[in-house]
């Protein structure tokens, strides 16, 4: 009779942190859905179908996301190819670093850069006016949405594509050279078959990012004909005060996102933020004239798309208004709000992620619970519940929570709470990708040894787990805080004159065409985000880190 009891205790001992995290997430989601469903009886179905508004919005959401993904992919493939063939190209490293930042750069800052180049008085029109030409006002509307989405996603995609091309063995390129395969043959028979396998996952992710993109469409959409679901929800709440309409839109968005998940079942899992390894690969097809021309054109297009907006933002920030903006109380109030929100959201996200990662490593390690028949399906479920938030649009979550709590507290109390919670949950999938593999590796390395030496409980955390994982923890918290700092979604819904964050302040300045002020705020925002990221990552990872892992490695290898 004692055995089942013992095994329950064993399970609890391993899994309680995960249960805490999952309960918290379930509670939040429960409140959100409770709110959404409580409004359902107020919905007048006939009104929704009256003027095709919902279908127009859904149609455009799909259309812009599909076209953005297609164009970003079409640019990313030749760029990835060019970079793969030219491992020693000048500026390659900087480009890859920029590309990996594209997830962290606040969306609104990127949007600002795009406006500074492509706006009516942007650099591109100024350049054309030198020749008495003008491209006119082409930015607002579909064009602007596409430019901004490609700006963010083409570098990300080319980085992912490059990573998989670089994973091919160097022998391949020697073989293609000896067999006399041309660039076209190599693309058709070697590179494309490889890319075709990773395109569903990576382009699925990009499609989802474009599908739920908010700040870009809000700032560059330019009218009701270019509304996406996300923006329509925002407008329904913020301007029409029409909560039933928001609920309908939210449910539409939610069900479509779930459909997307089912269609592209294995998204995101394969897309990790990783450093590309420097490998000495010689590509013999790189020297051909055609290869040089196509590679040159692809790289030029990418550089012209990505670099000028970044330069323009920095350039515009150094304006005579610098001192005036920097001494504005509003900026500092917004900065403080951003700081408090991002730190709180980051810590909550980290706690949740630690719980889930601890749970997953116990479920997956055969030395712990992994041998139990249902451990692996349980692990898959846990993993999925972490990622599913990626599909849950922040507005849907925020709308539901808002409806549930709107009678319980005033908006001034509710707003910061909602922004923090939603930001924490939004960054959770990203930091799980960092923590879960790190925790798993460390358990695999140390479980036997710790049991052997009787290192348990707090001692184990102090001597083994902390030194082995502090680097991943630092990266996770830094990333979460940086992402929350730059987020412009829920805050746009609940922000007021008295409660702004840096991204919202920047958006307001753009809205009133004070572009110089916006540029300075953008720079300030980036600096705050980057400083926090570096500070947190360095502090937690610690200087003594390399030494202690070296010791841990040594221990591990002597035991083996």
């Amino acid at each position, binding site marked *: 009779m004692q055995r089942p009891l013992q095994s329950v205790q064993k399970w609890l001992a391993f899994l309680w942190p995960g249960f805490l995290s999952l309960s918290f997430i379930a509670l939040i989601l429960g409140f959100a859905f409770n709110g959404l469903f409580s409004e359902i009886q107020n919905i007048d179905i006939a009104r929704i179908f009256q003027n095709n508004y919902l279908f127009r919005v859904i149609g455009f959401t799909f259309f812009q996301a599909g076209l953005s993904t297609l164009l970003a992919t079409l640019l990313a493939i030749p760029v990835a190819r060019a970079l793969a063939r030219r491992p020693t190209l000048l500026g390659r490293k900087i480009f890859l670093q920029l590309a990996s930042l594209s997830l962290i750069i606040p969306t609104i800052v990127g949007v600002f850069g795009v406006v500074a180049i492509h706006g009516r008085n942007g650099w591109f029109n100024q350049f054309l006016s030198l020749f008495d030409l003008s491209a006119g006002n082409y930015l607002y509307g579909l064009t602007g949405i596409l430019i901004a989405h490609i700006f963010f996603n083409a570098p990300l995609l080319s980085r992912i594509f490059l990573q998989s091309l670089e994973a091919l063995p160097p022998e*391949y390129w020697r073989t*293609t*050279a*000896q*067999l006399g395969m041309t660039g*076209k*043959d190599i693309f*058709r*028979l070697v590179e494309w078959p*490889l890319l075709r396998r990773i395109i569903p996952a990576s382009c699925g992710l990009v499609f989802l990012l474009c599908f739920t993109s908010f700040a870009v469409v809000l700032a560059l959409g330019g009218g009701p004909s270019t509304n996406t679901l996300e923006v329509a929800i925002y407008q329904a709440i913020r301007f029409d005060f029409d909560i039933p309409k928001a609920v309908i839109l939210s449910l539409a968005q939610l069900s479509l996102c779930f459909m997307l998940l089912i269609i592209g079942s294995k998204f995101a899992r394969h897309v990790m933020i990783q450093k590309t390894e420097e490998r000495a690969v010689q590509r013999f097809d790189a020297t051909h004239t055609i290869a040089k021309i196509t590679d040159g054109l692809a790289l030029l297009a990418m550089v012209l798309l990505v670099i000028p907006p970044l330069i323009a933002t920095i350039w515009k920030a150094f304006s005579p208004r610098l001192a005036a903006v920097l001494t504005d109380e509003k900026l500092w109030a917004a900065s403080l709000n951003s700081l408090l929100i991002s730190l709180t959201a980051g810590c909550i996200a980290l706690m949740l992620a630690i719980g889930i990662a601890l749970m997953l490593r116990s479920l997956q390690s055969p030395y712990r619970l992994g041998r139990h028949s249902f451990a692996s399906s349980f692990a898959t479920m846990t993993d999925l519940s972490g990622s599913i938030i990626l599909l849950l649009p922040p507005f849907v979550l925020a709308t539901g929570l808002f409806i549930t709590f709107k009678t319980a507290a005033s908006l001034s109390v509710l707003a910061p709470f909602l922004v923090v919670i939603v930001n924490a949950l939004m960054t959770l999938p990203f930091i799980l990708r960092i923590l879960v593999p790190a925790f798993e590796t460390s358990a695999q390395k140390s479980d036997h040894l710790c049991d052997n030496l009787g290192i348990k409980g707090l001692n184990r955390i102090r001597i083994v787990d902390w030194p082995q994982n502090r680097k991943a923890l630092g990266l996770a918290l830094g990333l979460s805080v940086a992402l929350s700092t730059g987020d412009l979604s829920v805050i746009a819904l609940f922000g007021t004159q008295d409660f702004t964050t840096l991204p919202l302040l920047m958006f307001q300045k753009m809205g009133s065409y004070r572009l110089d002020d916006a540029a300075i705020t953008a720079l300030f925002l980036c600096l705050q985000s980057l400083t926090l990221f570096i500070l947190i990552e360095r502090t937690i990872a610690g200087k003594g880190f390399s030494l202690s892992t070296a010791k841990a490695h040594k221990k591990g290898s002597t035991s083996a």
Partner: protein
Amino acid sequence: MPDDQKTSVSKARNPGASHQESLQGLSIEKLSYQHHGSEEVLGFDLSVAPNELVAILGPSGVGKSTLLSLIAGFENPVSGSIKFNGKELNRLSPSERPITSLFQEHNLFAHLSAEENIGLGIHPGLRLTSQDKEQITQALDDVGLKGLGKRHPAELSGGQRQRVALARCLVRRRPILLLDEPFSALDQDLRKEMLRLVKNLHHNHGLLTLMVTHLKEDADAIADRVVHLT
């Protein structure tokens, strides 16, 4: 010390390779090579008669594989010459050289079937006639893999994969075969079998074969002549 980097040619089993014959076969003269970012200069001198099977032995780091890469055109020498039947190869691209190579691993494209991998040796764009397809079937037969042409590399054993790669070498009909530690990843029995296969193919197709290995027994088992790089 500079002498240490030269090749010392042991002529124990083939004293006949002399200067009169140097126009025929492969001759490598005063070939020197420097690794990117390295001070050390590797030097090579070697001549191989047509139809000769030479094994190259030596400790790791001495440049055995580098020598094969230089001959195949994957690396560029600082100076010196590589000639085949009196014709200078240095300026030719890898695909223009009368050479076919077999590496230790990753010879086959993982996403293509055995047949397709062999077919690439006939047409680099894989546009194959029915005649070409017969030739592929024949090559598979020659290496003892009859009927396995539709399989992908992951569905073949390590030894079978190297057989497919050998079949591709055969359909290319190049007079020089370069083997770079081709069977080091295989167990002893399989290795012996593969060496016998190579020796047969070498004879039947009248090849000039160079094999790099770190195993003396492999070298002795197969080679007409063993060259020690020191």
